[in-house]
């Protein structure tokens, strides 16, 4: 179905928001080096819980 669409300028914040889940995953994985695997596991659980409550 051909639907006319407006071409909007791409905003970096929009790209970051849309890629939120992989970016947070990268951030949490990168944090393993500093916080260790156990706090990484806790942080992952907290992130999942927050998303299931707000999403």
């Amino acid at each position, binding site marked *: *179905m*051909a*639907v006319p*669409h407006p*071409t*909007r300028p*791409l905003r970096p914040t*929009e*790209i970051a*928001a*849309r*890629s*939120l*889940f*992989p*970016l947070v*995953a*990268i951030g*949490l*994985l*990168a944090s*393993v*080096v500093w916080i*260790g*695997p*156990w706090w*990484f*596991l806790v*942080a*992952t*659980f907290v992130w*999942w819980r927050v*998303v*299931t*409550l*707000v*999403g």
Partner: protein
Amino acid sequence: MRARTPRRLLARPEDVHCLLFHAFCLGAYGLAFWLWLHPEDAGLSSLPARLAFVAGASFLLGWISGIDVGVNFHNHAHRRVFRRPWLNRWMARTWTFSGGWPALFWEYAHVTVHHANLLGERDWTLPHRRPDGSFENIYRYLLCHWPWRYGRHLWADIRAGRLPWASAWREFGWFLLFWSVPFWIDPWMGVWLWALPHWLANCVTMGSGMYVQHAGCVPRSGVAPVRHSNGFLSRFFNRTMFNIGYHVEHHDHPGVHWADLPAFHDERRDELIAAGAHFVPYGYYGAARRLATLRDPDAALREFTADHAPGCEPPASQAESA
């Protein structure tokens, strides 16, 4: 001679989001693999530390892979992101392997089976139905469907010629080639940080998404033209999930680009509500949390079906409250 810009390669400029999302997912796998392969640097030398890492990493990777295939590649299955066919073909091949699927198989299951036969006898992508028409228990669906039921149905469709034999084997071959790479690097890494995340991607992320999209729904008919899907209006959910929450509109108009769905919804919202469409104020995460209860799942489904986003109540309720 006109200069070529990357934008001209894309069907729509917004589709750069799809490519970046997939690149970030592959980056996350690359980072997890690096941590596994450098245990001294990552503090993963002991078995308990490694188990904790695998538990968190496989869950995160499965979560984003489920979105990458079930939502992001899903966009490409309906509307190709590139203008050139060969780029689309190779993009697809290098896209779904990181979610445990050959692209052709996923696209066939979604477009040819699910969309064309929504909630009908031939729609084997959805949960089995009980005699009263309701879905089987969500946990049974999550555990039984991928890869077991999918594999059986795909094989039957290949044998029946509905999915062309030659294409199926060619694409399965490409999938095996790409999918096997982590196992060649380190077989145990392949099991824990590749195969396990793909199981989670399909059973938890994509399975629960498929379930909530159509839970409590009925096939399209003259009496119920738009009760085939549930709509999810959480702004957070739609902004971070390529607007997949506008699912009623998506099934009625699968050719509408994901970036256009919010405006498309706003234009048709009143008409859809008048026709009986079901919109809830949360996203799939909230819906799955409500429906995946072990205590009285039938009551949970009744509550979910009776839940409506503000301003999206059925016409009869609106008239009563007025």
